[in-house]
């Protein structure tokens, strides 16, 4: 089912919004005990909202664009009156008194909240294993990770527990789980979508975006969530085009750049490489021209990111002090002890690790060597992209160097886990929009993701190319059997 098909069905009264919500709640109750994508299912609220939509249909009112679409929301986006935990003990009982801008826009467009999804604690991780409330499993094979940090949202869409979802992407947290779970994940241009009500991780990198089963649905969701928000001073005050308008436009004359540094990776799995190169030839068949592009500083993205993101995180997470909200450790003698004990008790090990790295990189004597240096290399990475976009219209890479790995594979080696974000991080550093969509499967039946990156605010082109590829390749038609895949 796609969003446009659902709209038709509702209009023709072939299905009611209530029936639809009931179907999804049923599916969640069947599969989520095995997958653990949801931290909370908001069944009652969802049914009440569905009834409102059915009333509206009955009275013949025009339906808003996402009427009745059952959506899951990553649990680092504030939902008024619905617990928002960031998968952390620190916020275990936090019930936001306000609604984030992106979710507000979804509900105004008629979408229905099905529940809140699991993530790596405070979105720090690449496997959804650092959640304080248990790991999420990959619906294709539950012994594998779903990717992260938005693993709950990706797994929920892949397993048919919801029609679409929202995630956030700081270094690949939408695209990498989309790749691991065989769904479409879009990270918009930095500032295209409001971050107001998104719990901050690394403010110069964070961006909210949609997960969907298909590219057209992603475009429909972006149409609703994109746009200026006076409450987020980094949100861009530029017009929002209709992202669905040019999906059907042919690719003739399109110049596609293959970043050579991505394909020369030591850690790039052969099956991933072959599958992505096959997708590139498919674009050639559709009329695109393939051009080899060099981005010499591309591979320095990881080192740059693992200075900048923890530095910003250590500053952002200073707010959790046990005073105004969140976990407080009891019995401390004085204020400083209470804060240190609350932070030690409320944060898990990955969050503490990143706070320590960031605090070190920002501390006296090291700030120039680490933080300033990383910001300068960030400029070089941006310039590589600027240069690439004088020669091509869009860039193509694998989304992740491998398919989904086994649960627990990197649990004792944080650096190995960080390296799985190698190919997604540069787009965050440069603020560029990027999308991951399925392009094949490995021998074990696990999905492989293709990443497309376009220039700033060119989501329209990104979606057009992704759509044309998706329709021509139709990789889901001959999909292998996945344990919790419909």
């Amino acid at each position, binding site marked *: 089912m796609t969003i446009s098909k659902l709209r038709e069905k509702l209009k023709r009264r072939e299905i009611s919004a209530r029936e639809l919500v009931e179907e999804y709640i049923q599916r969640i109750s069947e599969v989520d005990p095995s997958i653990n994508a949801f931290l909370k299912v908001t069944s009652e609220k969802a049914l009440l909202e569905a009834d409102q939509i059915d009333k509206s249909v009955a009275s013949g009112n025009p339906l808003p664009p996402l009427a009745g679409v059952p959506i899951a929301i990553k649990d680092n986006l504030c939902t008024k009156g619905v617990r928002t935990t960031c998968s952390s003990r620190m916020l275990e009982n936090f019930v936001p008194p306000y609604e984030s801008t992106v979710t507000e826009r979804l509900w105004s467009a008629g979408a229905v909240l099905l529940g809140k999804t699991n993530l790596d604690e405070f979105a720090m991780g690449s496997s959804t294993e650092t959640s304080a409330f248990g790991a999420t499993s990959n619906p294709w094979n539950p012994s594998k990770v779903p990717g992260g940090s938005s693993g709950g949202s990706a797994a929920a869409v892949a397993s048919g527990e919801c029609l679409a979802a929202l995630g956030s992407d700081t270094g690949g947290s939408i695209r990498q789980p989309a790749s691991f779970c065989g769904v479409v994940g879009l990270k918009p241009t930095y500032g295209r979508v409001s971050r107001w009500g998104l719990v901050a991780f690394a403010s110069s990198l964070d961006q909210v975006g949609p997960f969907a089963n298909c590219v057209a649905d992603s475009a429909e969701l972006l149409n609703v969530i994109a746009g200026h928000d006076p409450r987020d001073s980094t949100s861009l005050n530029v017009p929002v085009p209709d992202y669905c308008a040019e999906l059907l436009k042919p690719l003739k004359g399109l110049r596609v750049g293959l970043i050579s540094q991505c394909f020369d990776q030591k850690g790039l799995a052969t099956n991933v490489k072959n599958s992505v190169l096959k997708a590139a030839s498919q674009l050639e068949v559709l009329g695109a021209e393939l051009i080899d592009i060099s981005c010499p500083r591309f591979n320095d993205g990881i080192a740059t990111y693992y200075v900048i993101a923890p530095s910003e995180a250590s500053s952002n997470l200073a707010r959790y002090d046990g005073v105004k909200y969140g976990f407080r450790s009891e019995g401390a003698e004085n204020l400083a002890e*209470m804060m240190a004990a609350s932070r030690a008790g409320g944060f898990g090990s990955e969050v503490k690790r990143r706070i320590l790295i960031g605090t070190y990189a920002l501390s006296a004597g090291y700030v120039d060597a680490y933080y300033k240096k990383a910001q*300068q290399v960030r400029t070089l990475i941006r310039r590589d992209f600027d240069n690439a976009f004088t020669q091509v219209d869009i860039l193509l890479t694998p989304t992740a160097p491998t398919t989904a790995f086994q649960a627990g594979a990197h649990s004792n080696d944080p650096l190995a886990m960080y390296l799985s974000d190698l190919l997604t991080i540069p787009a965050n550093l440069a603020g560029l929009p990027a999308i991951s969509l399925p392009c094949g499967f490995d021998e074990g039946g696990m999905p492989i993701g293709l990443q497309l990156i376009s220039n700033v605010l060119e989501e329209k082109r990104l979606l057009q190319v992704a759509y044309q590829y998706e329709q021509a390749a139709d990789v889901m038609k001959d999909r292998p059997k996945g344990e919790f895949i419909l």
Partner: protein
Amino acid sequence: MTKITPQDVKKVASLARLDLQDGEIDAYTDQLEKILRYVAHLQEIDTENIPATTRAVEVTNVTRDDIAQLSPLKDKLLELSPHSEGRFFRVPKILSD
């Protein structure tokens, strides 16, 4: 590249207001050493005269008039506190004896 010692981790933890256990300090010393060694290769990149990027997309300051307003959320925000009393957040004593 300086070597990371348990004393460095203790110092950073105290700056970050994290009350770490001894076992944690040893593990983090090891991991920080590895991660900082990995990021150290940035030092080899020539960045002479290269400006720093602080934001990926250029933005300018957004200002508003500085007018005091009553927050409609005041009571709800106080309710979220682990300890509040009247209009105040309650904390342990600030100065030690």
